[in-house]
């Protein structure tokens, strides 16, 4: 890399993020074209989940507001996409923003209600939201519009003719989803690096201090919910396009719970962590399913083994890496770097390892984009979530 390019990247966050996005798109293009259709579908799933998880990262990781209802936001996005395609036949480039927009409106309503709530009270309200909303599809007066239990089917998107006759639909769907994920991450990265992210973190760390310094906390929280809901809505729209279906069964409570698990496993408050979380959501169950189907177990055991492994991974990762995969990687990178430095100091002879080798993990892993989030702050998002008062937190 030449010096002027490097200095430009260092000076402008926007340029740096744009370069990261371009690199990611190129990598994803190479990945999707090399993969089989089945793998493309998994990439698409990971991509739309990344949108939702990244949105939740902003609300919960940076804003300290726990939401267990993001599955319901995804449902809003999916149904919006299905209705728009079904009734008006809009092109995808308009359908997906419409899904995000409608969900953002829903997020404004939920945010206005939830702005006063904290911790478990907010968790309870959003939990009821996640369980209650998909039930609307089965409500008698609405079954005609929303298709009841069977949901609404969507005409799958047709790959452009320019790509050739044999171009697989799955790869086209993966491209759409990856583009959505990269755009979402790019926008969120810029948003959280700026004033919005700063005030959001401030209000998470000390609400009263933030309010005293002129941050309008309630309004900020509503804005965070709207942003977060828009991402979930986009994810829902993409899900509907990939599954070619919007049905209540696609948005069970477990989806909402998986999203919140993904942000914690990935690393709270870090956008690269959101990517890790989404990847784990998609690949751990698949890997476990492959494992159980290849080992010739009885049906009951084989069908439940993926779930069991998933539960175990949740527990073990949370206990072993309390700051998530991203935090763990950062620790690992830091340790490797310190080690290298120590060794260099001790023996500056030929035994010293090349510094470029050992510092690799920390400079190239995607954490670079989000260093504004100090890990210590990210690790304790909402200490005043418990209503009883802070004094009670001292225990044992």
């Amino acid at each position: 890399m030449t010096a002027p390019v490097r200095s430009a990247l260092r000076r402008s966050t926007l340029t740096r993020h744009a370069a990261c996005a371009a690199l990611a798109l190129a990598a994803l293009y190479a990945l999707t074209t090399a993969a089989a259709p089945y793998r493309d579908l998994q990439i698409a799933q990971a991509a739309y989940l990344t949108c939702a998880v990244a949105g939740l990262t902003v609300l919960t990781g940076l804003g300290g507001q726990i939401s267990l209802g993001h599955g319901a936001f995804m449902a809003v996005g999916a149904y919006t996409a299905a209705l728009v395609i079904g009734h008006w036949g809009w092109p995808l480039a308009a359908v997906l923003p419409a899904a995000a927009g409608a969900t953002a409106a829903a997020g404004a309503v939920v945010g206005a209600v939830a702005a006063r709530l904290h911790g478990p009270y907010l968790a309870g309200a959003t939990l009821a939201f996640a369980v209650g909303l998909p039930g609307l599809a089965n409500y008698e007066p609405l079954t005609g519009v929303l298709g009841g239990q069977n949901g609404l089917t969507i005409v799958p998107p047709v790959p452009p003719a320019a790509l050739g006759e044999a171009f697989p639909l799955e790869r086209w769907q993966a491209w759409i989803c990856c583009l959505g994920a990269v755009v979402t991450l790019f926008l969120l990265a810029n948003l959280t690096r700026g004033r919005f992210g700063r005030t959001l973190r401030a209000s998470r760390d000390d609400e009263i201090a933030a309010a005293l310094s002129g941050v309008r906390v309630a309004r900020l929280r509503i804005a965070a919910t709207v942003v977060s809901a828009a991402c979930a809505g986009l994810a829902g729209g993409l899900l509907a396009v990939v599954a070619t279906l919007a049905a209540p069964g696609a948005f069970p409570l477990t989806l909402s719970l998986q999203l919140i698990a993904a942000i914690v496993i990935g690393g709270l408050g870090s956008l690269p962590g959101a990517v890790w979380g989404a990847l784990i959501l998609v690949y751990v169950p698949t890997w476990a399913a492959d494992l159980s189907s290849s080992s010739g177990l009885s049906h009951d055991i084989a069908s439940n083994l993926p779930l069991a492994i998933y539960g175990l991974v949740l527990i073990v990762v949370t206990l072993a890496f309390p700051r998530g995969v991203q935090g763990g990687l950062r620790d690992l990178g830091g340790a490797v770097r310190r080690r290298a430095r120590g060794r260099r100091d001790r023996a500056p002879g030929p035994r010293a390892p090349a510094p470029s080798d050992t510092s690799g993990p920390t400079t190239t892993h995607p954490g670079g984009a989000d260093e504004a989030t100090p890990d210590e702050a990210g690790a304790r998002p909402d200490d005043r979530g418990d209503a009883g008062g802070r004094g009670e937190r001292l225990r044992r």
Partner: protein
Amino acid sequence: MVRFLNLTLAGITSGAVFAAVALALVLIWRSTRVVNFAQGGMLMFTTFLAWSVIDAGGSYWLALGAALASGLVLGAVVERVVVRPVEDKPPLNAVIVTLGLLVLLQAAAGMIWGDTPHSYPPAFTIRGLSAGGTRLLLSPFDLFVIGAVAAVMVLLTLLFVRTDLGLRLRASAFAPEIARLQGVRVGRMLTLGWALAALVGSLAGVLIAPSVFVGPAQFDAMLVFGFTAAVIGGLDSPAGAVTGGLLLGCALSYVSGYLGSELVALGALAALITVLMIRPNGLFAASTGRRV
């Protein structure tokens, strides 16, 4: 009018079970500041154990005893093994650990007992009693449900208020540092608190089992409604849990009876929002001054 009365009776019965689940959540929240999302999974597992006892030819009461005893053990083990390491970590980590436990318990139940739900016999007949020529939506079994939950509430209150052990439990929950200075073994008390909560939860599981059947995912709604009831009451208050449970039971019964059963979960949301709009920390929350 009869319909309203019947819906109210049905609401009180289901509300009693919600109250028991809510009480389990409140006991755990008060002592460890953890919302136990695995509660539904834990009571599912103990109910399955009870079902196994009945399936093997045991009586209803033996099965009930097995459920309560296994609940006690399960609660203690869960606190010691998975919850203790995250108790001083950010609250979200506790949320994730309990969610992971929920998934793990559901998978384990599916592996052991299969995914198809099994029927569970009630202790008494579920044919409604009649009064003045009209049949009521209240059966001897419903009376047993209400009575059992009420008895557990009374016993717990006596334990917490009247006994030395109860005093130590309360001290560990409210002022652990001071309690430790006074010689209370706080860690042990917290384990006992979890065990007691899991016992109450396992009672709720056995009581609701005849109407929802027993399967790995059959008790998910119990967690949601129990949590909603606990939040309505104010998470810190056992009395609030009971009140919240009964209020929620009746509200859901009216929604289901007059509007449609698909809207029950939305009805819970509406009830929750209504209460939280008026009192953001629940009905029975102690009002605390804002500290700056």
